[in-house]
């Protein structure tokens, strides 16, 4: 019954909220209504109504259904799609009249302002749902607390993911299986503490200290680190129950402390990141307090708890004024490798390489070990960018990479020998940046052949922040290589057929050319000049009009003409990762700010991190 009534209350609350929001907007924007009638509607009539108006509703969309801005706002999901289809040039389809770039921009701008209005004076920081530590964060945190590496892959259930990352508060649920395993993991950790960590935790017992005083001081210090905040009054005292019990059973104070520690490691205050606020209010948002800030920062850059320095600064309330130098210090720490593993590993999908297996029959010479080394190549590039504070554009345009002998040989690059990876110049080769890394090329291929579609999709989705909508249901994918009889047509010809279908055309016009540009790289990342006995044609034309003849030219176009999109992608991915929630329309000002600030310093990596940390959603909570 409790659940039932709270469910109803929830519904009522939502309805009320939408009334308030809707109401506020109606009153505020008469000029937008006017602009709609005079400028926007004529464009829609001209370019869209042939299929989506006047009684026509292709794809179940009738644009003339929406009579006013509030009606559009009440169907934001649909309008997000409409907006993106216009912005990403998916609509109108290639064979229809299309608006000029200026009109396209006008439409998008109007939709943003009318349907997705943001209050620049008082931006909404959004809500980060109470986050459980994911497996990796748990592992790192226990490492920093006890010096023990818990085998989380074996012990803890897999974390589900959303928005491309596996530490999203809303998605990280907690089942009884989790609870059982946390109990087990905490026992595991206690049992394997090193003498050094034992000394660190138990400290030196002062002379004359009673068992109770001693236990309190140890628990106090440990829980302060584990809970990432100062303890509440009386909070440590509760753990004395273990001392009383130990004494009655003839056990020592040390065993009571261990019992307390193993309990702390299962406590919700340890497993979840509670974020308290400061007293500072700004409009309808509140600044998170310094302990919460230290915690956000350290899980962002280290995937672990704040260290002693961060704790000290937060205790004194001095973290905010030292943010910049702290970020520099943290990025220089070996712990920032977490950004490579977890941020770049998921953003660029490098982690998926473990499950990529090129066909043995098609690529008999391909050694399994290469997939791991390709992953390392990209990780080294990311790490180099962090360490040297290089512009993020390096990812796309680097004329150097990191190779060892085996990988260099695979690429056909001479003069690199041995197992160790080292920086290698790519000048004089056809390779530039990420898109020529074996990792990405492998990830975006099928076991037996390349996939221009997957490659195009990868670039759009991950690097340009313009995810193409998924294929409509019931559309078959291209044939695989099994049908040997069909080999008279090239893959490109097959894809052209694919694009002849109007249902597929608009998206594939977006994805395929990018993939064509990369066709000189085969499904295992090797350079090739022929496929199926025919010369490779790596030319293409993007929907925005630029033509290219090779992968190198494609890369140059991406970095010159699509820098803005790439930078937005970086901002969106970093903000998603740093907060652990999906990015919403109300985050637009924050994204704009981050891109702007980072570019003030040549888009160097540190400046992105600083801009994210200074952003409203990172610093504030809803009131």
């Amino acid at each position: 019954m409790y659940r039932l009534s709270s469910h109803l209350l929830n519904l009522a609350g939502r309805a009320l909220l939408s009334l308030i929001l809707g109401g506020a907007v109606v009153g505020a924007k008469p000029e937008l209504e006017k602009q709609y009638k005079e400028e926007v509607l004529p464009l829609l009539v001209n370019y869209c109504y042939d299929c989506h108006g006047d009684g026509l509703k292709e794809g179940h969309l009738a644009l003339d259904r929406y009579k006013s801005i509030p009606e559009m706002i009440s169907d934001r999901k649909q309008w997000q799609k409409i907006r993106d289809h216009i912005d990403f040039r998916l609509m109108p389809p290639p064979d229809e009249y299309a608006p000029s770039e200026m009109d396209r921009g006008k439409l998008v701008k109007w939709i943003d302002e009318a349907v997705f209005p943001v209050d620049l004076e008082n931006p909404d920081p959004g809500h980060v749902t109470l986050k459980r530590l994911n497996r990796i964060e748990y592992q790192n945190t226990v490492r920093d607390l006890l010096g023990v590496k818990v085998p989380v892959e074996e012990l803890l259930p897999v974390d589900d993911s959303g928005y491309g990352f596996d530490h999203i508060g809303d998605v990280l649920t907690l089942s009884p299986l989790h609870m059982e395993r946390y109990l087990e993991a905490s026992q595991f950790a206690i049992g394997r503490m090193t003498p050094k960590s034992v000394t660190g935790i138990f400290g030196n017992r002062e002379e004359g200290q009673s068992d109770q005083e001693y236990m309190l001081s140890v628990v106090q210090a440990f829980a302060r680190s584990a809970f990432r905040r100062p303890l509440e009054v009386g909070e440590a005292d509760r753990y004395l129950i273990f001392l009383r019990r130990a004494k009655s059973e003839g056990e020592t104070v040390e065993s009571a402390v261990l019992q307390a520690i193993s309990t702390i490691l299962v406590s919700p205050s340890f497993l979840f990141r509670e974020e308290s606020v400061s007293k500072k209010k700004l409009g309808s948002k509140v600044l998170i307090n310094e302990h919460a800030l230290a915690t956000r920062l350290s899980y962002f850059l280290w995937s672990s708890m704040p260290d002693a320095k961060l704790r000290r600064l937060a205790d004194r309330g001095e973290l905010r004024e030292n943010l910049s130098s702290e970020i520099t210090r943290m990025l220089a720490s070996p712990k920032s490798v977490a950004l490579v593993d977890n941020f770049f590993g998921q953003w660029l999908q490098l982690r998926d390489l473990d499950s990529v297996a090129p066909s043995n029959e098609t690529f008999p010479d391909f050694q399994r070990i290469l997939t791991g080394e390709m992953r390392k190549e990209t990780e080294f590039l990311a790490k180099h960018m962090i360490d040297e504070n290089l512009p993020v554009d390096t990812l796309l345009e680097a004329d150097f990479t990191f190779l060892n002998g085996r990988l260099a040989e695979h690429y056909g690059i001479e003069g690199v020998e041995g197992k160790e990876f080292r920086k290698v110049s790519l000048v004089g080769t056809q390779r530039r940046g990420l898109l020529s890394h074996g990792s990405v090329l492998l990830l975006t291929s099928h076991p037996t052949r390349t996939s221009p579609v997957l490659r195009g999709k990868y670039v759009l989705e991950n690097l340009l922040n313009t995810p193409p909508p998924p294929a409509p249901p019931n559309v078959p994918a291209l044939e695989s290589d099994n049908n040997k009889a069909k080999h008279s047509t090239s893959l490109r010809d097959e894809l052209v057929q694919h694009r002849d279908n109007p249902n597929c055309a608009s998206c594939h016009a977006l994805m395929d050319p990018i993939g064509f540009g990369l066709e000189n790289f085969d499904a295992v990342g090797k350079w090739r000049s022929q496929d199926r006995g025919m010369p490779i044609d790596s030319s293409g034309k993007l929907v925005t009009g630029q033509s290219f003849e090779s992968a190198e030219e494609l890369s140059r176009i991406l970095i010159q003409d699509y820098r803005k999109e790439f930078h937005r992608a970086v901002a969106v991915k970093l903000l998603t990762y740093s907060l652990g929630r999906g990015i919403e329309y109300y985050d637009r000002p924050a994204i704009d700010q981050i891109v702007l600030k980072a570019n003030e310093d040549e888009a160097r990596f540190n400046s992105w991190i600083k801009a994210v940390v200074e952003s409203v959603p990172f610093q504030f909570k809803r009131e």
Partner: protein
Amino acid sequence: MNNRRTFIKGLACTLALPSLPSLAAATVVSRPTRLAFVYIPNGVNVNTWFPKGAKNTSEGLAALGGLRNDYSVLRHLEHDKAFANGDGAGDHARANATFLTGCQARKTAGADIHLGESVDQIIAKQIGHKTRVPSLELSTDPPRRSGHCDSGYSCAYQYNLSWRSESTPAPAERDPRLVFEKLFGSGNPKLDRLRRAQRKSVLDFVMDDAKRLDSRLDGADRAKMEEYLTAVRDVESRIENAEQFQIEVPEQRRPSGIPETYKGHIRMMYEMMALGFQTDATRIATFLLAHDGSGRSFPEIGVSDGHHQLSHHRGNEGNLEQISKIDHFYMEQFAWFIEKLKNTPDGEGNLLDSSMIVYGGGISDGNSHNHRDLPIILAGHGGGVRQGRVVEAKEGTPMTNLYLSLSERMGAKAERIGDSNGMFEQIS
């Protein structure tokens, strides 16, 4: 009256409604009924998998050859909620999510996951207290890496079969060693006892922590604490069950870890299910062979393309042949499991006599992502199920009607499961 009905209908995917406790006196049954669900991804080669006539045999079912009287093929059961119904692409995520819940997955990459309680969990909540472990959730899917999933659906939908509530999946275990430990303990009863006592005191303590934290939270954050509290209570009752039901540990069958081959892994998981049933350590299990959309290749049987890619066969004979090979591979392992149950004594008969095993997937023909006429086998003679047939359901019969009938045979009552609209009594 009418209003109330629609109201309750609307809630079907939010909560399962248990009916009044049965008036029949609880009698000690020597052979309890067991229930398991095994999931195959990406559909099947429908041309070879389905029987052509009234006999329950086909090329695709050949591996079950010697067991013809122990299973039936159920035709025309469907999962309407796995279709887009306005949500666009994402059939693999939906097929997986809907399979045991019969509910439409809310399309979200994470912010507001909403599905429904799965049939196994509905039953486990009602009868799970009768065994050491209320239910087993197993999987042989490889560990997940980055979080990119099907068409805007959070990965939670595509990788979890069992759901404890509309927003909380029950994650599956893939290490048979840990499954064994969960069923039978560490092998050292004294240590296990100590551990249980220690755990109880920890749980007691953190329960208090959670309540204090809860009082400082609101909204979605409270739901997280509610999840935590539920988990604590659940583990507490599991500890009590473990104390109450002492079982002799089949120590010689303790696995050492995850077997290297896929086949070995699958069989080991089936073995754990059989063991759980045999010792009555549990009566309910779900087994995700691989998540829907899985791109696994099968070099051990000469299939080098990914399963998902092949499943979009476009009528190509070569692709269809490869799919048949995969179908056969999965069926062989299943036959091995059914055989095993049949060879395991249980009371006066064998374990298969008291089991009901559902084997199938949420997609029929992978090429078109069809969710009607799903490939479904019901094996075992538990609950008075009649086997050796092809059972033709009326077209449009929800898969969940079958679940409702199975639930009743397990002694659990639900007024409705997902989109069910009645019982499916043709199985008897």
